[in-house]
């Protein structure tokens, strides 16, 4: 029994036994803090699936593999290729315990903990003994493992440092094994170089092909370490991409030489897991095929090259578009690439390695709401007179930046997460942006006093005004900062709905309503951007004629448009136009699909399940829960939502007509969008992916057009046969709602409509 000063131990065995004797089996004695979580973590002794020490009869606890046995070159190649598969499985999110740590050579290298490069060996030199000449194949395998483990260390550290979800995205647990933490990468690089020379020197003995195959794999390890090292620089993308390009080039020859290897399954064992710092019983090795591994690495290398392009900053909106489109890829880039992107974006609060947060936010404000504005004039910072409006402006703007910076950067950070998390995070962000908007409005009001801004009679555009009349609203202030915040909130709300389509969150009978809601949001956004544009135009005119008063001593209000000022206005107006266009395309496509689904539902071609335990209204509550707390735009009342989703006032032929017209509108808009240059589209650096997105939307439009036409034709045919609009009987159509990954674009779920032969 353990004893120590101050502790008096009492043997309670007997008391415990007699107390438990009064309980029936299965009674649970627990305090209020015993949760489901604890019960899930509990183990059952002697259950082989839970008890890590439980052995089958005759089973040995340890692996009896001899790491000093001679290895053939083909075996070394076989082991390396198996390690590549396990490395990828780890990247994909499986723990080291079920991947790389199942290898006996790695285990021997890492245990006991190596502190020097000499110790990092599966055959440890005995101290005092002269270094015996060793089998070159050992040196090759060891050098490969050194490079592999060090790369894993860097990858693991990178991921741990950034925002990610443990176990969900990735498992960073190293079970108290080192990943060569203390060993310098240059020493490791030297070992790999030496091994490459060695392989070269014995090429005649092991065959040229084999020497090449091993050489490529060693080279891959060097390049990987180099790629990691360079990524820390965050400098010119072209120079950083060299090792990635090199890996990409090595990858096909590696794949093609895999047949030279002989698998050594004995060198991998689940038993090693018992020695790791974990209570988990051994779980199976995660076995990817080499074909799968090939595909994943290929994507990793391509993404590695691609992600570097983010470093060449053009403007804040191109940056956002880059991140958006890069992360929307299917499949998504691996966690390592996603954390690399975060690192590029945010490390040390220096954006992309050379920009201040202020620079990016001001750039964004200039593009979206205040081109060539005195509010963004940096020279105000040096004004020290508290009564000078410029001093006040600089102060208020700084308050605003401090208020908004985190929320703004969080959008980028959120976009770097897995898609499920992006949506869930945005559901919270919109509440945050709601308060940003309110706080910004207060600052706007202080600023408009400093600027002596005159309210403007702003005419709502007839196309987007809610009552369709384009009536004049009372004179209003521009409220640039809250306008900016509101625009982001609207975008976030649209993204939440769109990610709902992408993640297959909606049941087919919800699609009519959700596309309607998307359209509603997009229209609100268009309307809002029209408002921003009106104020920007007004200010442009003032600057032109020199009445842009406000702050005195402002060298910008000179009454003529300098080329820089003109460029700023042009850039902003081009952004606003592109945004309105994008919003218009969104609402037209969404309208088209909403009308189409409404019709399909009317016709019983998309049928709701019986749902005896639920009501439509309660489901509306759950579905719209993220939006319920938002004051602007307010969540439509359930009744108006139902009316919008069912369109009781419109006939079916009429709805199909609307749908067809909306498709035409969307396609026209997309046509214009597709002609924008990378600058006009604010897709500098990611233009290809952006225009690919536009193309996929265009195909969506064509697809939707076809489906609508088929329904129209069937409807007309039935009307002809059965006497008029209200013709009886089911439409001779078969409708299938595709999975998002089968759609041209995950955000646009176009129903597949097939004509069926009713004669049969």
């Amino acid at each position: 029994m353990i004893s120590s000063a101050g502790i008096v131990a009492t043997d309670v065995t007997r008391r415990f036994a007699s107390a438990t004797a009064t309980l029936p089996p299965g009674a649970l004695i627990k305090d209020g803090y015993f949760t489901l979580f604890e019960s899930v973590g509990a183990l059952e002794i002697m259950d082989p699936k839970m008890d890590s020490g439980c052995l089958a009869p005759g089973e040995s606890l340890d692996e009896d593999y001899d790491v000093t046995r001679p290895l053939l070159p083909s075996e070394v190649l076989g082991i390396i290729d198996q390690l590549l598969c396990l490395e990828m499985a780890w990247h994909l999110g499986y723990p080291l315990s079920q991947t790389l740590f199942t290898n006996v050579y790695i285990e021997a290298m890492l245990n006991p903990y190596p502190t020097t490069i000499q110790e990092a060996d599966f055959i440890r030199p005995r101290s005092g003994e002269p270094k015996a000449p060793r089998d070159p194949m050992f040196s090759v395998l060891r050098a490969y493992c050194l490079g592999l483990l060090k790369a894993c260390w860097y990858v693991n550290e990178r991921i741990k440092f950034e925002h990610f979800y443990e176990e969900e995205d990735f498992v960073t647990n190293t079970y108290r094994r080192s990943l060569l933490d203390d060993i310098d990468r240059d020493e490791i690089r030297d070992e790999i170089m030496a091994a490459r020379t060695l392989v070269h020197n014995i090429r005649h003995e092991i065959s040229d092909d084999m020497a090449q195959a091993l050489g490529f794999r060693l080279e891959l390890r060097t390049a990987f370490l180099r790629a990691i090292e360079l990524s820390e620089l965050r400098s010119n993308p072209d120079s950083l991409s060299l090792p990635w390009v090199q890996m990409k080039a090595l990858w096909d020859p590696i794949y093609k030489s895999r047949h030279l290897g002989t698998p050594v399954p004995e060198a991998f064992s689940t038993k090693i897991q018992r020695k790791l710092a974990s209570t988990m019983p051994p779980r199976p090795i995660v076995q990817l095929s080499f074909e799968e591994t090939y595909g994943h690495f290929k994507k990793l290398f391509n993404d590695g090259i691609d992600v570097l392009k983010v470093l060449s900053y053009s403007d804040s909106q191109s940056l956002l578009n880059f991140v958006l489109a890069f992360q929307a890829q299917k499949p998504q880039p691996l966690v390592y690439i996603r954390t690399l992107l975060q690192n590029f974006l945010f490390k040390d609060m220096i954006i992309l390695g050379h920009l201040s947060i202020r620079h990016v936010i001001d750039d964004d404000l200039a593009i979206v709401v205040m081109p060539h504005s005195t509010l963004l004039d940096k020279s105000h910072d040096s004004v020290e007179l508290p009564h000078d409006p410029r001093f006040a402006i600089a102060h208020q703007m700084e308050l605003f930046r401090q208020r908004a910076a985190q929320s703004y950067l969080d959008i980028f950070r959120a976009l770097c997460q897995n898609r499920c998390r992006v949506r869930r995070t945005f559901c919270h962000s919109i509440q945050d942006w709601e308060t940003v908007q309110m706080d910004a409005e207060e600052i706007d009001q202080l600023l408009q006093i400093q600027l002596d801004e005159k309210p403007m009679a702003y005419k709502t555009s007839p196309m987007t005004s809610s009552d369709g009349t384009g009536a004049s609203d009372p004179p209003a202030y521009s409220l640039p900062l809250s306008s900016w915040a509101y625009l982001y909130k609207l975008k976030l709300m649209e993204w939440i709905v769109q990610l709902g389509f992408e993640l297959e969150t909606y049941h087919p009978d919800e699609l009519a309503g959700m596309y309607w809601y998307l359209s509603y949001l997009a229209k609100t956004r268009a309307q809002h951007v029209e408002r921003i544009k009106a104020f920007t135009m007004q200010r442009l005119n003032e600057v032109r004629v020199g009445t842009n008063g406000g702050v005195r001593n402002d060298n910008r209000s000179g009454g003529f448009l300098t080329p820089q000022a003109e460029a700023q206005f042009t850039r902003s107006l081009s952004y606003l136009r592109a945004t309105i266009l994008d919003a218009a395309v969104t609402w037209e496509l969404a309208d088209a699909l909403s009308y189409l689904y409404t019709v399909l539902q009317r016709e019983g071609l998309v049928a709701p399940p019986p749902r005896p335990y639920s009501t439509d209204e309660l489901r509306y509550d759950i579905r719209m829960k993220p939006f319920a707390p938002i004051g602007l735009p307010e969540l439509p009342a359930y009744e108006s939502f139902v009316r919008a989703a069912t369109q009781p006032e419109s006939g079916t032929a009429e709805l199909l007509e609307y749908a067809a017209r909306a498709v035409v509108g969307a396609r026209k808009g997309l046509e214009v969008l597709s002609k924008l240059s990378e600058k006009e589209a604010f897709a500098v650096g990611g233009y290809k992916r952006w225009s690919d997105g536009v193309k996929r939307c265009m195909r969506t439009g064509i697809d939707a057009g076809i489906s609508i036409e088929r329904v129209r034709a069937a409807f007309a045919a039935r009307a002809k046969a059965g006497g008029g609009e209200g013709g009886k009987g089911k439409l001779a159509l078969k409708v299938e709602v595709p999975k998002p990954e089968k759609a041209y674009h995950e955000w646009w779920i176009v129903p597949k409509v097939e004509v069926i032969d009713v004669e049969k």
Partner: protein
Amino acid sequence: MAALPGELKYIQYEHSLESVYLPAIRALISKDLSEPYSIYVYRYFLYQWGHLCYMALNPSDSSLVGVIICKLEAHASHSPPTMRGYIAMLAVSATYRGHGVATALVKKAIDAMTHRNADEVVLETEETNIPAMRLYERLGFLRSKKLHRYYLNGNSAYRLVLLLKQIDPDAATDLSLDEVDTGPS
């Protein structure tokens, strides 16, 4: 798929049945799980919420055909807290699937939870488990969110929600869509 052996008996679990049925319950549920639950997980639910566990029994020999295991408690992150029911496990013996046994079990559980004032019932199910998702959606559950790589096998899940009562609009600032997701299914 065999025909049902006559009219099944549906009975509510109680602690005195542990020695008779717990082994069969574990066996039935473990069959479709990659990771077994320890006996404590079962007892955690059954000891506290045995009244929310229903079993479908073969009328001829009273052997277990299907089982549902749930809990119901105040959900803390809500203001005011909601009574949240949670369907932890559901399984029907492979031979008797497709006859509405699971549907009947889920209905009994929802009825029992409603009776005990539940505001909502939630659960998670693997994204690939189409039969389960269809079953729940047919009853009125909605997918509220997707959970990335929720299971140890790397599969994602959906959180399904059945709202039984109107959400209090004053509590709307809370997002029950996003509390920590723990627990088996």
